């Protein structure tokens, strides 16, 4: 399973990159599994997650080709 991962704002700075491609051998992968693969730290409570540009949570099961974005609280307007 291939997942495209994107990071924004302070999280992009912390991860040192804006995006990356992540592959899994197993068929069942959640957002939490993905976070564990890209970071050695536990996922901060304040971090928001979107799959294919819709807000969701860390229990969301991913599909091949999904785009997953992690980012801090939004501050527009």
């Amino acid at each position: 399973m291939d997942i495209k991962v994107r990071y924004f704002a302070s999280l992009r700075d912390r991860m040192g990159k804006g995006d990356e491609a992540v592959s899994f051998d197993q068929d069942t992968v959640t957002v939490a599994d993905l976070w564990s693969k890209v970071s050695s730290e536990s996922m901060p409570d304040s971090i928001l997650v979107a799959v294919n540009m819709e807000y969701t949570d860390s229990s969301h099961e991913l599909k091949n080709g999904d785009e997953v974005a992690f980012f801090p609280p939004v501050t527009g307007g």
Partner: protein
Amino acid sequence: MKVFITKDALDPYKEILDFENTALPAGKHGGVVSFVGTMRDFNDGQDVSAMDLDYYPGMTEHHIERVCQEAIDEWDVMDTLVVHRVGKMVPTDPIVLVAVWSAHRKDGFDACRYIINYLKDSAPFWKCEVTTSGEKHWVEHNSEDPGVAARKGLKKSA
């Protein structure tokens, strides 16, 4: 409904006039309610000299379009215009425009407030401020607005 993100300087009052002259039928609306957000030269007790606004292309537009449609469905609104600036800007620059055309003012005010509150609450934008001493930092949260938490309560059906 029109939503767009721009890196260019924003003249919100020209955008309102241009949209009204091209998209609204003449003589049918009773008013336009607008909110224009501008950049302050202070935040959280610090003097701010510049700002860089980041966003998530695609998701940002998609979520603003959705909330404009919710407002059009919820209130008696004829049309909506949202323009949000991104990239580098300085104090006094307009950041965001929300404009709502309606036959009657109550629907216009309610819909405009709903859209700007949603935007601040949920649309993926992030402000990175530069202070007058040259320090750069990401803004961690928007200032508290009780209207945001209560936005569902604004809806007529709620």
